[in-house]
């Protein structure tokens, strides 16, 4: 049976979809079978970031309603044989999702895939609660900024109370993925530092993704950043996060800390 991961945050625009795609592609490059599921019914974006928008025929709502079978709706990635996308419907809204329907689809996906990664919509309403409901592991995406941190804290509270695991008295495994981190600005005090965020949220750190132009570039190309430019700093950080998700012990490096005297000189010249 595969593991179900929910990528969630509460706040919008912090990088849930980007991280879902990047982690999915990173895990698939380890030759593990991965399905990424878009739960943002009505505002789907994962298909664009994965570069599959022109191949969507059936979607999650069709499968839930029984209009299509799961294999008909799954889209295989053109670059990675082991990566699949289950898109959301753009013409419906979150009310089209039902508790039983989601349970059935997730149950089926778990049988065929090693990893089922659910891209949660923003907010704390039905879409977000259904996306987290059947998860085994939660990846909480947070920006180093106060409103994002507070929303993540709210979501962690919900992960501990509204999920099946929580209702069965088990503990939901939760990981913090700090995205859009800029060490220079954090040092200046414009951004929260890693330790501040960890202190407030008190959950283990999965990775720190540096703020980078490469992320936006990859999104617009329609490729997860771990596929578009595997050597870029954000891609490297996502690869490390994926290894930690898979259970490997990899020390977390704060981006920018490794930069030596040459990096600093070069950085200044470039700016």
């Amino acid at each position, binding site marked *: 049976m595969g593991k179900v991961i929910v990528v969630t945050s509460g706040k919008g625009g912090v990088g849930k979809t980007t991280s879902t795609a990047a982690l999915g592609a990173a895990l698939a490059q380890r030759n593990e079978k991965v399905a990424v599921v878009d739960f943002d019914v009505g505002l789907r974006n994962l298909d664009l970031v994965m570069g599959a928008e022109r191949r969507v025929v059936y979607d999650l709502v069709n499968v839930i309603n029984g209009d299509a079978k799961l294999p008909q709706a799954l889209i295989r990635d053109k670059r990675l044989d082991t990566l699949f996308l289950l898109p959301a419907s753009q013409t419906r809204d979150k009310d089209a999702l039902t508790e039983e329907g989601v349970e059935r689809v997730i149950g089926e996906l778990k049988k065929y895939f090693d990893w089922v990664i659910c891209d949660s919509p923003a907010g704390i309403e039905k879409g977000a609660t259904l996306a987290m409901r059947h998860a085994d592991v939660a990846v909480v995406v947070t920006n180093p900024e*106060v409103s994002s941190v507070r*929303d993540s*804290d*709210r979501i962690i*509270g919900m992960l*501990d109370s509204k999920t099946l695991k929580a209702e069965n008295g088990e503990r939901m495994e939760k990981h913090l993925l700090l995205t859009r981190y800029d060490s220079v600005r954090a040092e200046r005090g414009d951004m929260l530092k890693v330790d501040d965020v960890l*202190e*407030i949220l008190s959950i283990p750190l999965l990775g720190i993704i540096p703020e980078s132009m490469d992320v936006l570039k990859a999104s617009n190309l329609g490729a997860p950043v771990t596929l578009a430019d595997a050597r870029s700093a954000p891609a490297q950080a996502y690869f490390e996060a994926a290894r930690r998700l898979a259970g490997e012990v990899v020390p977390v490096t704060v981006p920018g800390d490794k930069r030596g005297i040459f990096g600093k000189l070069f950085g200044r010249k470039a700016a």
Partner: protein
Amino acid sequence: MTKVLTDARSIRIKGRSFLAVVLSPDLPLDQWLDRLDDLAARSAGFFLDRPVVLDVSELPIKKPELKQLIDDLAERNVRVMGVEGARPSMLGPGMPPAMKGGKPASDVEVTAREPETETEAEAAAPAPQRQEAPQVRAIPQSLVIDEPVRSGQSIIFPEGDITIVGSVASGAEVIAGGSIHIYGALRGRAMAGSIGNTNARIFCRRLEAELIAIDGIYKMAEDMDSSLRGHAVQLSLEGDTIMADILF
């Protein structure tokens, strides 16, 4: 017209818990009312001066029927102070407000007594209070929470002290009848002595609170001495002022 607010005294807002009698009617309602008449005949004046809450969560009725039921009860001198388990559409103006968050207490014994005169029954009204006292004492006086309190969560414990081994996040609230002990940072709201306890205190490892209150006297983050921020602090009430001491 704008009003000039000159009085700087703060308003005390307190919580207080009372024991109410909860009636849970069942269908058909006329038969239930007959049984209620029966009970009232055996124990005259039982409902007199008692707060009564109507629990309709198990009752599939609509607004007109609920209104009729409340009127029928009023005819029997049963005054309903609130309705529990009603959908918002079932209540309207002129009807008792919705109540929620009730805690179960043990069943109230209705003592069978010979029908007596009205005046004697009224004199007997304080008697039930003697039954209430042991119930309150039976409830544990402290609540310990081993996890951080997350934004949006509220921990309410009117019966006594709350101890939290962890932090209280911004946007979370902790409300205790007694004192509040936080072994972590207090970033949200903490309200101690909520049911009127001037001796209640708030302790925290690190004060970064949005709001603190003791016995209804509150202080917002802006009104707090900035030198306290980030320190281990004890807060207590002296008259109408919240006093803060840095703990070492």
